[in-house]
């Protein structure tokens, strides 16, 4: 579940991550509920904690690499780290309303 109390910059990052798509479902990873945590330290680093909808996901590396590239472009010079977690396990309940609409289209 996405952490609460995001700072203004972290909300910006969340919006930015909506450009990262799951290529199989064709829905962005934020609306799929895959992003759990966003930590931004001014002039220093961005740290993302993400999960995948299933273990062994064949597109997992691509998604994580995509997050890194997007953040590197938006925050050049900052330390970017993307951490993969399986805790808590992702469930379909984590999909946002927008995500649900996109999937059902």
């Amino acid at each position, binding site marked *: 579940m996405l952490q609460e109390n995001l700072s203004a910059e972290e909300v910006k990052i969340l919006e930015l991550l909506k450009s*990262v*798509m799951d*290529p*199989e*479902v*064709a829905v962005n990873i934020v609306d799929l509920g895959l992003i759990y945590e966003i930590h931004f330290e001014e002039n220093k680093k961005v740290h993302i904690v993400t999960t*995948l*909808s*299933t*273990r*062994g*996901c*064949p*597109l*997992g*590396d*691509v998604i*994580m*690499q*995509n*997050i*890194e*590239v*997007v953040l590197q*472009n938006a925050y050049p010079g900052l330390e970017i780290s993307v951490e*993969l977690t*399986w805790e808590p396990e*992702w*469930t*379909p309940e984590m*999909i946002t309303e927008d995500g*649900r609409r996109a*999937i*059902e*289209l």
Partner: protein
Amino acid sequence: MQAGLSTLNAPAPRVVLPYYGFGAIAFLISGIILFIAAPDMINHYLSPKLLSLTHLLVLGWISMIIFGALYQLIPVVMEVKLYSERLALITFFLFGTGILILVWSFWFFKFQRSIGLEIGGVLLILTVMLFAVNMFKSALKTERRNIENGFIVTSIVYLMLTVILGFLMVLNFMVPFIPRSHLDLLKLHAHLGMIGWFLLLVIGVASKLMPMFLIVHKLPVKLLSYSFYLINAGLILLALAFYFYPKSLVLTAFSLLILAGILFFLRFVFIAFKKRIRRKLDIGMRFSALAFILLFISLLLGVVSVLSPGIIGKFQVRLEIIYGVLIILGFFTSLILGQTYKTLPFIIWLQKYQSKVGKEKTPLPMELYSEKVAVLHFWTYLAGLILLITGILFASSLVIRIAAIIFIVTGLLYNYNVFKIILHKALHE
């Protein structure tokens, strides 16, 4: 690498793609053979042309694609790297050569000594042994010791038994040394292959992939366990009965165990489809849904043909052939046609675009093939299948020939998409 990721574990596309290419072409050619061999479809099952066609379908088409897909999917389902890519490539050449020799030799088989069948048989045994080594070595590394992987590993044991028995049957035609009828042995061979190898493998892979594709969680895995034990117990008992005591009552009882096991799996599939978040089925999943419906119909037919031989009388042999057609050209073929679209585009997409993701605009994997062509061959496939069954039921070579032409069209459309994907050139390349 972080645990649970599989992209970096994926084998090189050059290892996997030949399997898809060979399989697609074999499917097309089997349509042509069906056209030529149409009159043989209504005779006995031990006709050389029917044996030739069946082996082209089960080995050249179904097993070929399963081998390729499995090499690709081992990292997904077992979360480990394939033990040896080189072995996988060698297996392809052995397998391809073995299949061609075997199919050719069956066509001209006179139920006496056939060097071709012997050579083909040896090549196939070698192939399957190397395939098994690759799979078992990979499986030993996995920490995911779940029921899905149990299905996969067990299916490979049955594959070995199927091929060895097939080879012994070839030898037995020359110098009879097995004190059993060829027909009972053929049934044993077919059941080990269809249920032990194909079906168990499909259950193992599908129960892992379907929830991924449909986006559905927390499925009753217990159903899979029931399915696993019932099918295995039923199949082992059935195999022993075919050999030692092939009486109809015993065979029926053991078949019912298998049937119960398959029904538990179908219940699992039904729940997955019902609870899915992703309501719209893409072409891959439409083919898969059709496949499960065809499996259910073939089971009903199987039960009717076993339980009421008196009613169906002269249709017995035809119904048994239809039963085989529904399983091979129905269930497995539909599933593979569909799952091609759920695997092949991703293999190529990762190869061409993995390094470009986020840096430039990339197409979606589903944009690598023509959806229109896929939908078209969904309908031609279904029409061909219905006509083929009608043709067999009414013993009409003409109707079977028309069905074969429609299958050839399906094969051409399918090949168009397969090679469109395989030969895809990256944008900005």
